[in-house]
């Protein structure tokens, strides 16, 4: 399988409790996967491991069957993944367009072509008219759409979303999750950590975590 975890466990230092334990997971290209579980169940940590932000203390992450090593993780992060975070991480003093272009620039695109693609994605997620506005002046929902446009513009293999609608109202949640899932390029998978059953319902597969272990939806 394209994205695989084998025997992955993680804790944030010796003597600390294990946050995720003994996880085996296979995720295919283009899959829509929801990670569900109560707070503290290890969703964010598992997502960080899947997206190569965190190197697991034990076990291995494999991409197309090849184990990912720490020194090659940055390169694979650029080419394979894009992120949408709960807190809508963005460069708040830069414009929406500049923010939406970032991932493309990190992939080596020229600024002009990155801006052209990013502008189209901003239009697609419904915030094209805000392209020139500094990110700090956008509402939470608008900023989250800019972050989704940033992820979509890069056409990655997987978009990893960590509770992207956690701080949004119901109507905005539906709009944002639709923009993320329905608007994704063909072949791009989405792995989304969420508490919202409605968002999870839109995904083809739901993985449930309890105390750092997969209790349903795994399947190595």
């Amino acid at each position, binding site marked *: 399988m394209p994205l695989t975890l084998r025997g992955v466990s993680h804790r944030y230092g010796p003597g600390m409790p294990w946050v995720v334990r003994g996880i085996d997971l296979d995720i295919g290209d283009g899959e829509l996967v929801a990670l569900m579980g109560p707070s503290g169940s290890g969703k964010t940590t598992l997502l960080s491991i899947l997206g190569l932000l965190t190197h697991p203390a034990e076990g291995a992450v494999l991409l197309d069957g090849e184990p990912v090593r720490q020194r090659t993780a940055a390169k694979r992060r*650029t080419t394979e993944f894009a992120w949408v975070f709960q807190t809508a991480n963005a460069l708040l003093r830069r414009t929406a367009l500049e923010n939406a272009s970032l991932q493309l620039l*990190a*992939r080596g695109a020229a600024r002009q072509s990155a801006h052209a693609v990013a502008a189209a994605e901003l239009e697609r997620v419904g915030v094209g008219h805000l392209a020139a506005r500094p990110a700090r002046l956008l509402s939470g929902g608008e900023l989250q759409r800019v972050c989704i446009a940033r992820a979509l513009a890069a056409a990655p293999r997987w978009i990893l979303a960590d509770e992207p609608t956690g701080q949004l109202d119901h109507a905005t949640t539906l709009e944002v999750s639709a923009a993320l899932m329905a608007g994704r390029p063909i072949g791009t998978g989405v792995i989304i950590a969420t508490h919202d059953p409605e968002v999870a319902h839109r995904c083809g597969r739901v993985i449930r975590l309890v105390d750092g272990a997969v209790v349903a939806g795994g399947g190595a």
Partner: protein
Amino acid sequence: MTWRLSALIEEGIANLGASAFRSALLLFVSAAAFGSLAYLELRQGMELTEFTRDFREGGAYVAIASVPGGGISGTRCESLNGRPGVVAAGAWRSTGQATFPTAPGVLFQAASVTPGILRVWDPGQLLGTGPGLVVGPAMAGELGLRAGLIAAFEGDEPVSVSGVGDFSKRNPQAARWALSPVSPAGEFDECWVEFEPGAYEAGRETLAARFAESSADPAVRPYRRSDEFTRDPAGEWSSRPQKLGWIAVPVGLFGFGLVAAWFRRAEAGLYLAMGTRRAQLALMGASESWPLVAAAWGLGFSYAVAAQFLRSADPTVEVLRHAAVTSGSAALLALAMLPWAGALVARGSIASLLKDR
């Protein structure tokens, strides 16, 4: 599949422009630091330069060779001119007291001098190049003499006055002397030698030996006693605290840069999450900090020079060079250090950085 170099540089510059307040604050702090360092160098450099000039003009590096009862060789004394480390050397001998018909009853000291001694006693002007008398300023004032006039000792032939010396710093008692330049052949009362500062101690020690062959028991004494000067300009300059400013200032600015980077951890985390490497983050930091540091050094140094011009004497080229080198070295070290502030703060877990807002 990573950042283009041009895109990284543009990204840094865009971040610089996007945060006008932060950039202006960094510019102001850096300019103040570089400017203060340059100003301290200029101020102390000029103060010591002026003191050293007064010190030297006061005869600090002048030695006097003499023989008890007189009899020092004028030829040997004049032959010191042109030797390494010797600024000027010349001899004089008293020829008694004299009166002038225009001031009957007033005694003046008459002396024969070799040309070199006039350069030791009055380094500010060329005297004694002609055959006429050189008179001291007090004598010139009392008798109304000036260069080009004719004067005559009582009972002697008239001679022209070739100049009025300013002996106030090197030999003030010669203010009422009438000096007749003569050939260095023969014996004189004293030989005065001015050395370069770096050659003074060694020159003074070997001076007696130069006269030992032709004179019995020559003695050498400094014109100024060493305890007349309580300051050591060279020592003060080499132990000045701001000498280490080229390290202290960039270290301080780096600390400031770390604080600024600390408040941008989430930004660093975002770049890293997209696959930006820490070295690329440093390069982005360089394109953000280098224009600031360069502008800050230019502003700070210009301000320091302007302040020094307004405060006192115009700084010499040498002092300006010192100030530019010290503050410029600080700026260069800051250029090397500041780009790493962001990369250093962004060490550790990317996931943790993203949570820091």
